[in-house]
């Protein structure tokens, strides 16, 4: 296999090799274009058929109600609730082992003072954590977040 090719011969050889593949590529692209056209036509027809069916049977073919956003109906903590929790923690420093949402909510005085809803207590603590008022000390068993007031 000790053949030597001139530059021209090499170019010719390369062209011979690539020509069939280039032809194949053109053919594939034509095919794709044809099918895209067919697909677009089919989609347009489908839309027209759905439009007719929706008039006959709107329950089955009419526009579907939009899914409710996940946040819809979710309770959001108010700035007043956050402030109340902070003030309470300042005035009643918890013991050194830290505290978590449920441990606070078990305390009747805390609930009465802060008037915080149980569904948002974790949000309030997360907010105070972001404000650097609290530090996340550790994760408890079951994934509860145990906080401490930053000294």
């Amino acid at each position, binding site marked *: 296999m000790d053949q030597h090719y001139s530059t021209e011969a090499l170019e010719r050889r390369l062209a011979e090799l690539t020509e069939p593949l280039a032809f194949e590529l053109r053919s594939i692209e034509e095919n794709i274009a044809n099918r895209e056209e067919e697909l677009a036509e089919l989609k347009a027809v489908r839309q027209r058929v759905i439009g007719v069916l929706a008039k006959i049977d709107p329950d089955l073919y009419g526009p579907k109600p939009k899914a409710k956003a996940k946040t819809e109906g979710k309770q959001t903590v108010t700035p007043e609730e956050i402030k109340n929790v902070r003030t309470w923690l300042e005035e009643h420093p918890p013991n050194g082992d830290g505290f978590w949402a449920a441990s606070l909510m078990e305390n009747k005085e805390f609930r009465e003072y802060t008037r915080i809803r149980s569904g948002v207590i974790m949000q309030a603590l997360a907010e105070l954590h972001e404000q650097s008022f609290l530090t996340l000390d*550790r994760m408890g068993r079951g994934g509860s977040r145990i906080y401490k007031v930053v000294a």
Partner: protein
Amino acid sequence: MAFSMREFRDLDLMLKLKEAGPIPSKELAAECGADEFGSHLGRRLGWMNRYGMVERDPKTKLWSLTEAGGRVVWAKKRAALMDELEALPAEELIEVMAAITARYRLGDPMTAVMLRREFIFGTRR
């Protein structure tokens, strides 16, 4: 437990280190409530080390705060400053933010990284 920034802020871990003193990562993981030690905390500490917040003694293999990290932790409680910030009208916070971003660009690299990571933590929702 992943020790990701979604749970523990850099400051949480730094406060833990301040409290515990030089400590092996295995013990620090246990202090943070991890049942078993994985490589997660080690990786996190590795990044914090790269950013200059914490350091590991190569001989004792104990982790502790760097001098710069210690300054950040000790500077945390400036209650008067926090009250002032809270009292600022929202529009003036934009100027405060501009000052912070200037410090981000021009300040020391460790503080810049911490500012960036705090922003990520605080705006992730």
